[in-house]
């Protein structure tokens, strides 16, 4: 089984997000890049499948973005147990999901993967599309929001999350592209041995500029959301803040006596 896992480098939750002077992107210098949350679950699921099959299965981490942002998450994926990586170096800020999927597809189509795992949504652009777009480009069957997987001979059975507490199992033939919902497993930490071993693993580099890239939707401006409600701001030392909340609970909301 040859499994590709799409992993994207995104700004960490704690990073300071500031719009840059072009007003079309954020100021990268303030940002610490980490792996997208659901992608970490996707990688763990792939590693578990490889381990359960105990054959010559291969897990390949695929990341597109500038090398300085991606190399850390690629190293981390290899340290956790991925066999090799594909880095699609793109200096340009591409926000159109179809362009992203097309570039990834151009770089990996010759690999003939049996499975592509992706996260259900990236935390920065959040289109929730790249895994499915790539599946269609590669003529694979697709499924989204997987919260359990079972490998079968030449097929995969997937438990999908539907809305408001409903679920459904479905079986699709391989090759397949499946987006993974967070919470499906417990992502591992890299071991010391894994970290050492990662140094000798292959990272194949592609340059995205060699492929055509015609954005069909463009991000024309980033802006700061405005407040819907005029909230009362409460700050200060913790003790006075706690007293103010107590007053609110008592006098404004009357939820306590």
């Amino acid at each position: 089984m040859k499994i590709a896992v799409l992993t994207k480098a995104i700004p960490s939750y704690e990073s300071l997000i500031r719009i840059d002077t072009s007003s079309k992107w954020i100021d990268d210098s303030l940002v610490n890049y980490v792996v997208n949350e659901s992608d970490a679950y996707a990688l763990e699921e792939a590693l578990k499948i490889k381990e359960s099959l105990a054959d010559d299965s291969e897990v390949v981490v695929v990341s597109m973005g500038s090398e300085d942002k991606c190399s850390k998450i690629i190293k981390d994926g290899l340290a956790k147990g991925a066999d090799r990586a594909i880095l699609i170096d793109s200096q340009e800020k591409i926000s159109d999901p179809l362009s992203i999927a097309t570039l990834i597809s151009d770089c990996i189509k010759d690999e003939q993967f049996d499975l592509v795992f992706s996260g259900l949504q990236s935390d920065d652009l959040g289109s929730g599309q790249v895994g499915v777009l790539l599946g269609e480009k590669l003529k694979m069957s697709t499924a989204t929001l997987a919260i359990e997987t079972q490998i079968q001979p030449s097929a995969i059975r997937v438990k999908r999350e539907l809305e408001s507490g409903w679920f459904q199992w479905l079986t699709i033939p391989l090759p397949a592209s499946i987006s993974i919902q967070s919470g499906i497993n417990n992502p591992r930490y890299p071991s010391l041995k894994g970290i050492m071993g990662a140094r000798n693993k292959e990272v194949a580099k592609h340059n995205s500029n060699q492929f055509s890239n015609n954005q069909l939707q463009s991000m024309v401006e980033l802006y700061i959301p405005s407040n819907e409600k005029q909230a009362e701001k409460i700050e200060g030392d913790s003790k006075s803040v706690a007293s103010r909340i107590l007053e609110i609970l008592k006098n404004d909301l009357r939820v306590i006596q």
Partner: protein
Amino acid sequence: MILVVLENQRGKIHPFSIESVVAGQKIAKSLNQPLSIVCVGDNIDNIHESAKQFECNELILASHPLLKTYSADGFSKIMIDLIKSYSPKYCIFGHSYMVRDYVPRVSANLSIPFISDITSINLSSQNIQFSKQVFNAKLLSRIENESTNGCLLSFQSAAFSSDELLQGAPKKVTNFEINLNDSDIRSTTEEEFQESSSGVDLSTAELIVSVGRGIDNQDNIPIAEDLAKALGAELASSRPVVDMGWLPPFRQIGSSGQTVSPKLYFALGISGAIQHVVGMKGSKNIIAINKDEEAPIFEIADYAVIGDLLEIVPLLTEELRKR
């Protein structure tokens, strides 16, 4: 033309689809384009009956036995055929889980853009602009369609209000000829099911203390539990807290969890991502404690407490206990 696609959710029109009809009516009016609405599925009599109340130029019925159960293969094929024969300028969906599942296939197949998860639009700019949340809901992005071959749109819940739906009747009803074979559908699906909840119904709770990733680790969960106890509130959480196994799934609020509308929603260390907010924005009062002054939860909060929950909450609980 503008095309709106209705989703059949267990025999009823999906609530997001009704909001997308409102979106379609507004966009069609602004661009002076005819509006068509399509019902897709097998047993579509129910939704057809409801759709007859919507003001539009045409109601299209796309029914086929092989669409009885949803499949990404079947639904994307029908949409591709529909778009090829109608060439809509915009094809509009509600941003449901089903739409997330198959509409990207249509986009990739036809090489037309899919602008997804839109929260608002600006119809007065020369090229319509679509806004959506980016960077963990800390920013919004304005997006424009660059394609001349049409564009797919999906609207997040509450981008439009179903109160603004224009009632009327379609000027005509058309049947759309469907070509679908067993061999087109590669998947086999099993029955949909619900997982047993533990009997905790948060939807009727008056007071909710909800905890997010800001609680930092499992050992801190009692900080939130103690506050809930002192207030007589139910304990709830955001998704990551459940994913990490700190609280059971039935406590999760949001698009993949429960929807609540308590008198007080106390959000502790929750950033305010749209998928969480859709589950709690109906709360009468929201107190949010977050150490990040720019956290999006403060956009909908009534009381914005900027500070460290790990310090503030124990003090508050202590005060409550003193009474």
